[in-house]
């Protein structure tokens, strides 16, 4: 018993072929779209790779780019087959390849599905990469004279301004590192010496943040220094002050930015999978309906199309048997192979 059998006359076949041709072109556009999404994602990761210690994984965007290219190729081929399907002579040259092509499409859909899942799960690895990268970035903030790290200050400042965030988890991360270079500290002054000596590692720590943490929406001019000292500023209470500097940490800001991007890309890849499955099903119906013409000479005769020749169970058993025979075909012991073939049939 075939699965989901449908009767086809000439008109229905022609309509199916035309509709399928259009769908294939749509699928080619979708392939180009997936390719460009992968490219965009790759560029965005590159832009902020300094915040991730330059060792972020580019696996997912590369996979998207490859999948987009493969989708373009496969769907263009499918469209060509579809275009030729109504002319018996032209279709004859594609007939032997159709079965392999459909298997290839099925495999490709599985790949797309894995890619979409990876899009959603990669956010975890990104979270850890950002945590580590931002911590190091803040450590090297003051090293504007060290070659190779001299742009970290600028990058971090621009990131904090653009993403409206301060520090790694929150602004207090700046209290734990020395972000002013020793070149700009007057070591002859008592205050500086006291601060440095009060610290085990000899670091100049203070309860201040860089200017890029300032929130332009604050009603009062930005308070950057002596943040925890209420008496240092007139009419200031650091427990209730919310608008002065950005309260969000940069890791959270960047993760939510990339997370949003990846969720959208994953959702769009799922839509592309639906489209691919639809064209696969359509092509299967079209090719089977062309194979089962009641009168092979007369193109206007009726035919039947189906999704699977046998039921699902039987098809799966067939596939397993084929795989087994392929595997055992390579084995030296011929007797066992014959026995296995006998058992299946």
């Amino acid at each position, binding site marked *: 018993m075939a699965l989901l059998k449908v009767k086809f006359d000439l008109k229905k076949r022609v309509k199916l072929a035309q509709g399928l041709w259009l769908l294939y072109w749509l699928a080619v556009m979708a392939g180009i779209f997936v390719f460009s999404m992968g490219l965009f994602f790759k560029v965005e990761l590159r832009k902020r790779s300094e915040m991730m210690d330059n060792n972020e994984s580019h696996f997912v965007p590369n996979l998207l780019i490859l999948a987009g290219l493969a989708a373009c190729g496969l769907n263009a081929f499918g469209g060509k087959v579809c275009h030729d399907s109504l002319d018996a002579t032209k279709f004859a040259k594609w007939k032997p390849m159709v079965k392999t092509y459909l298997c290839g499409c099925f495999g490709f859909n599985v790949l797309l599905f894995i890619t979409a899942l990876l899009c959603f799960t990669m956010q975890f690895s990104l979270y850890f990469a950002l945590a580590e990268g931002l911590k190091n970035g803040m450590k090297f903030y003051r090293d*504007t*004279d060290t070659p190779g790290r*001299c742009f970290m*200050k*600028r990058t971090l*400042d*621009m990131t904090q*301004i653009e993403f409206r965030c301060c520090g790694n988890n929150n602004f207090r991360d700046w209290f734990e590192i020395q*972000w*002013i*270079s020793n*070149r*700009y*500290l*007057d070591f002859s*002054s008592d205050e500086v010496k006291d601060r440095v000596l009060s610290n085990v590692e000899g670091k100049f720590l203070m309860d201040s943040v*860089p*200017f*890029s943490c*300032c929130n*332009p*929406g*604050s*009603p*009062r*001019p*930005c308070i*950057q220094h002596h943040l925890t000292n209420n008496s240092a*500023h*007139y*009419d200031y209470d650091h427990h209730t002050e919310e608008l002065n500097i950005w309260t969000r940490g940069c890791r959270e800001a960047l993760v939510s930015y990339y997370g949003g991007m990846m969720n959208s890309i994953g959702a769009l890849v799922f839509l592309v999978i639906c489209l691919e499955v639809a064209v696969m099903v359509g092509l299967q119906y079209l090719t089977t309906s062309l194979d089962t013409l009641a009168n092979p000479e007369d193109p206007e005769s009726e035919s039947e199309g189906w999704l699977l020749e046998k039921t699902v169970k039987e098809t799966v058993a067939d596939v397993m048997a084929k795989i087994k025979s392929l595997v055992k075909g390579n084995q030296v012991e011929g007797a066992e192979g014959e026995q296995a073939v006998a058992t299946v049939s």
Partner: protein
Amino acid sequence: MLCQNIHCGLFEFCCFNWIIISGGTMAVLKIKFSFQRRVHLAQGLWLLSWVAMFSGGVTFCMGLFLKMELLRRAEVMHTTDIHVVPNLLMVVGLASVGINLFAGRVCQDSMDSTRFTQWKNVMIPYFGVSLFFTSMLIVAMALSYALQPNLEESLKVGLKNGIRFYKDTDTPGRCFQKETIDRLQVEFRCCGNTNFKDWFEVQWISNRYLDFTSKEVNDRVRSNVDGRYLMDGVPFSCCNPASPRPCIQEHLTDNSAHFNYDYHSEELNLHNRGCREALVNYFMGLMNTIGPCVLSVFFVQMSVLASLRYLQTAMAALEGQENVEVETEGYILEKGVKETLNEAKETLKKLLQLGQVDAEPAPGDAEAAEGKAAS
């Protein structure tokens, strides 16, 4: 005198030279059209009209984009004179879509001479209106350069007010000035109106955040005629992220207040340019990009109009003839430029005088015009 029949190629409209023909009655830029040539002209014009319609849409989008950018910065602009440029571009863009749709329609009808005659009376006013709107493109381009001093003046006053009201975050209607100016300075990498010293002349810290019991504050306020708290400090948004050292915002002119700091040689600490200069450069950059696009749209539109004129005159010569495949001549103007202008003046006068009550001035004027034409 340029009285030759130019057998040039159909679309070699490099002869767009409107040379004044002295006293001759020869038509301007006559071209012979065989039946085949007419068909080709109509087909080419149809395609060209679609291209021109698309470019009209592009003009509209460019005008819209420019207007949106100007509106975004409306808070630091005092006057809206410069808005005439994007408004013109939008109007012309929409008009050109209409003009080209009409041209395409006429083109389609030109193949059938019976349908073509229905457009006869509309063509001259149509050309007048189209030429008017197309010349508006050049006007818009000229205005975008001519209004630059206006833009600068408007920004000067707007920024001055913005800096003055920076501290008024509790005054309704001005409470967003601080945020606007801060975001502007960060985005455009600028500080103050002309440069950062503009902040020294304004009290940019609100009295709410000044401790008037402190001696230092009282001294500063009294040392000033207007009782303002002035200081040589700038807001945080003036800070340059590319500076190698953490930003120095206060006591900028006092070298001894900071370690290893020289006010005169320090260049990277704050943004050096003023916001007025930054914004003017930005907008002029936008208009310099839009300029060549507008110029090319102008040329496309003019070529559509010229082709349509040739098609119209070539088809008009067929009127009343049995054989549609005969060769005809097309031209831009039937008579010389001077004569055409005089005729146009007389037609306008007649139209105007149709509305007038007293008939006496009319014959006198007509005689004077005829006298001029004869000479």
